[in-house]
C-alpha cells in the first residue's frame, strides 16, 4: 500500500485523520459494550461461589486491564517522543493520562463494590489493590508534573521520564498475586492453563474489554485533537505577538 504513514506524525495531518477515525471507534465501542452488557447481565448464568455479585467483574476487570494497558501505552508514547523527538507522541501521552486515571479510579471503586459482599470489607490492603492505588497516584503524578511546568517542551519530557520510571510498577501489579499471594483471588484468566470461567462469562468480559478499549481510542483521539488545537493556539498566539511583553525575571 502506498500510504505514507509517517505523514501522520505531523499534528496538522493527524488532526483530520483522527477526526475521521473517532466515529468508527465510537460505533464499535458502543456495539461491543451493548452486546457485552447483554451477555453479561442477561445471558450469563450465576456464579455458584459468589452469586450475582460476580457480575461486577464485567466492568471491574476491563477497567483494571485498561488502567494498566493505558499506562504502558502512555509510557511508550512518551518514550517514542523522547527517542524520535516527535511532538505528536507527547500529545498522545498527554491525551492518554486522564482516561487511564479514570479507569484506575473505576477499577478501585468497582473493586470495593465487589469486595464488600465477597470479603466483607470495602478495602483490603492486598497487594493488587495497593498497586492499583499506587498506579492512580502515578497517573496523578504524571499529570501534576505536566501542569506544574510551564515550558511545554520540558513538561512533555519530564512527565515522560516519570511515566517511564513508573512503568516498573505495572509488572509488580500483575505479578504481585504470585509474589505475596494474599487475599485477592487468583487471576481469572491465565495464559497457560486456559480459563476457569464459563464461556459466556468470558465472552462478556472480553467484549466489555474490547468495548472499553475502543472507547478509549475514541476518547483519546478526541482529546489529542483538543491538545493539538490548544497547542497550535499557543504557538500562533506567540507568533502574533510581535512585540513581546517584558517578562518579569525573578
Amino acid at each position, binding site marked *: 500500500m502506498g500510504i505514507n504513514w509517517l505523514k501522520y506524525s505531523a499534528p496538522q495531518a493527524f488532526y483530520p485523520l483522527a477526526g475521521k477515525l473517532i466515529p468508527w471507534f465510537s460505533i464499535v465501542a458502543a456495539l461491543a459494550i451493548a452486546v457485552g452488557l447483554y451477555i453479561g447481565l442477561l445471558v450469563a448464568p450465576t456464579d455458584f461461589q459468589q452469586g450475582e*455479585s460476580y457480575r461486577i467483574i464485567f466492568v471491574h476487570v476491563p477497567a483494571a486491564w485498561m488502567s494498566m494497558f493505558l499506562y504502558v501505552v502512555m509510557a511508550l508514547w512518551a518514550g517514542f517522543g523522547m527517542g524520535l523527538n516527535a511532538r505528536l507522541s507527547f500529545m498522545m501521552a498527554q491525551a492518554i493520562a486522564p482516561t487511564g486515571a479514570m479507569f484506575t479510579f473505576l477499577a478501585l471503586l468497582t473493586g470495593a463494590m465487589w469486595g464488600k459482599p465477597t470479603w466483607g470489607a470495602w478495602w483490603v490492603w492486598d497487594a493488587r489493590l495497593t498497586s492499583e492505588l499506587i498506579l492512580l497516584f502515578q497517573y496523578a503524578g504524571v499529570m501534576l508534573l505536566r501542569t506544574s511546568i510551564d515550558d511545554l517542551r520540558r513538561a512533555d519530557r519530564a512527565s515522560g521520564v516519570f511515566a517511564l520510571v513508573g512503568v516498573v510498577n505495572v509488572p509488580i501489579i500483575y505479578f504481585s498475586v504470585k509474589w505475596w499471594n494474599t487475599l485477592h483471588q487468583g487471576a481469572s484468566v491465565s495464559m497457560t492453563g486456559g480459563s476457569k470461567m464459563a464461556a459466556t462469562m468470558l465472552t462478556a468480559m472480553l467484549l466489555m474489554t474490547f468495548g472499553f478499549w475502543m472507547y478509549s481510542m475514541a*476518547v483519546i483521539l478526541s*482529546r489529542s485533537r*483538543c491538545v493539538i*488545537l490548544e497547542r497550535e493556539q499557543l504557538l500562533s498566539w506567540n507568533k502574533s505577538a510581535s512585540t513581546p511583553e517584558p517578562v518579569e525575571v525573578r
Partner: protein
Amino acid sequence: MYWGSMSEFWAMGGYGLYVWTSYIVTALCLVWEVLALWRRRAAAAAENRGLL
C-alpha cells in the same frame, strides 16, 4: 434469557446495590468524560476561530 422476572433482575440476588452502583458510576464516568471533552473541544475551537 437467564432471569425469571424484572424484579429478580434488579435485585441481582440481593447484591443489587453493589452491582448497580458499579455499573451506574462507570456509565456516569464515561458519559462525563465524553461531555467534558465535547466542551473542551468547543472551547478550543472557539478560541482558535477568534484568532484567525
